[in-house]
């Protein structure tokens, strides 16, 4: 098997397994209250980590670039209670503009 196919199949298999972890092992069950309290915080924690890594993450270092302008403009739109699609469009436009002028 070629390297490309080996990578595609191993990564695909591993990702399918990661995504199936909760639904297959715990699916439909009600978690004990203490665990549920912890799991309930996964959403804000992982969302915050995604914001950070997508805004300033690079291959293996912090990268400050036009994405910051996008997040900043997005934050203003969020504070102004803009609907979600508008936030996405404003952020993309600000990022593109900042990239054009830097």
């Amino acid at each position, binding site marked *: 098997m070629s390297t490309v196919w080996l990578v595609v199949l191993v990564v695909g298999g591993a990702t*399918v397994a990661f995504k199936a972890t909760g639904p297959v092992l715990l699916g439909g*069950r009600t978690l004990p209250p203490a665990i549920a*309290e912890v799991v309930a915080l996964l959403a804000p924690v*992982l969302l915050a980590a995604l914001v950070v890594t997508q805004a300033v993450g690079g*291959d293996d270092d912090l990268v400050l670039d036009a994405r910051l302008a996008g997040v900043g403009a997005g934050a203003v739109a969020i504070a102004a209670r803009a609907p979600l699609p508008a936030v996405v469009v404003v952020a993309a436009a600000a990022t593109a503009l900042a990239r054009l002028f830097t």
Partner: protein
Amino acid sequence: MSSFVSRYRDGARAASAVAATVWFFGASFGLVARAAGMGVLAPLVMSATTFAGSAQFAVTSILGAGGGGAAAIAAAVLLNARYAPISISVAPLFRGRLPRRLLESQLIVDESWALASRGGGRFDRRILLGAGLLLYVSWVSGTAVGVLAGDALGDPKDLGLDGAFPALFLALLAPQLRAPRAAAAAALGAVIALALIPVTPAGTPIVAASAACLLGLRRRL
């Protein structure tokens, strides 16, 4: 009933803006995967099974630079390890027989999961699966166009689409920050991720940040 329908419509509307962005990135993945020597079929199979942008781009950049299969696998597996905690957070939404739970779980992706999040640990099953399906079709069809005709589309970065994702996640995080404990956990998670980005391989910061949810073990905060 009407509020349920309007909420569902809001979800679909939000998902369609995100789907367009995801489609462009799928096309861009197809283009760079082909340029990295992955051929036509392998990138398509990868989009259909892995369905996670950052890991797939990492693979193309490592293989394209002659980095070897083991390095590509390690990076992608590390990047996608976050889907273990993410899938645990939505586990109660998945019912029925095992094959069905397995199949539906593959519609979990950062964006569908984030759109479905309602705060306080609650998630909307219809939005998770509806948005997930839409994004899956966008990602795979984008990849197909990218491997075949990607040159004609240009770079999604010129459209600023890479800056749209962090803003999207911020918009979905903001309403959850009203609960003091969620705000504290989110801040801790962000600090952990920020501190680890310069010193660990990509993927590790997000997985390590999930430890911040252990704040849930404290009775008061």
